[in-house]
């Protein structure tokens, strides 16, 4: 059962959906999860990561903070009378490797208002990010590298 981890996650989701964590229900959830995984077994590459809960929490915290900050920033920006915008796209050199990490990073970048990852180069090396305020791409790169990417690596790198 190579999807065990995922299946467990699904089970948790199931519990959450049906809002009950009684063993019976969880068992059922597990069964359902297994079934739906089995359906698409041929599509997925098994992913196995050492889970580091603490780091995850840190990542989450960072994410929340980033959110709060940038959201307010953009909100203010938007609500201004005249919007001083210097939008643009900058290329971000990736250090993360696996699909999962890249995906996660891209999502986080996108989720934080003001930055938006639009594309990945064919050789998973560059991530193209669109920023509302692209006055200084270097700084932005710094932020991402220091922030999300580091946290992610800490959380998932083996």
């Amino acid at each position: 059962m190579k999807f065990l981890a995922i299946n467990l996650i699904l089970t948790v989701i199931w519990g959450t959906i049906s809002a009950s964590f009684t063993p019976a229900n969880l068992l059922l959830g597990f069964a359902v999860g297994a079934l739906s995984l089995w359906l698409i077994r041929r599509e997925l590459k098994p992913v196995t990561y050492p889970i580091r809960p603490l780091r995850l929490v840190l990542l989450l915290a960072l994410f929340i903070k980033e959110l709060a900050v940038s959201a307010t920033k953009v909100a203010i920006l938007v609500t201004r009378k005249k919007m001083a915008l210097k939008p643009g796209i900058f290329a971000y050199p990736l250090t993360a490797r696996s699909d999962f990490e890249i995906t996660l990073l891209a999502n986080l970048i996108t989720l934080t208002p003001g930055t938006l990852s639009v594309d990945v180069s064919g050789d998973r090396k560059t991530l193209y990010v669109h920023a509302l305020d692209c006055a200084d791409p270097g700084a932005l790169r710094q932020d991402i590298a220091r922030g999300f990417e580091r946290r992610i690596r800490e959380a998932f790198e083996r």
Partner: protein
Amino acid sequence: MSHLTDLPAWAAIAVCGLLLMGAAMTLIGSIGLLRLPTFYDRLHAPTITTSGGTILVCFASMLCFAVLQSRWIFHEVLIIVFITVTTPVTLMLLGQASLYRHRFEKPQDVPLKQGPHAEKDRE
């Protein structure tokens, strides 16, 4: 409105606050959608909604029901999770789609980037 009276004052105020803030965020997001000049800028607007609005409103709901003790509060969590997972996909796809379309159509408001690989040499 029996259930709202059940809420202790602090909870009530908190709920209202969260709710209002969330709604405000959402509204702002939409305003952004409305006002921002180019498509790429507009792409950013919904992120405010999703991140700010969703989370706040869902917190409000969680708090409300948690206090009311009426049920488990995981639903909102789930909602938040799903939203956070799915929204970026849409946005990215849209962004790229418009990139390609612009590359094809070449209208005036194309950003400084001409295709995904223009930057390679700029690096």
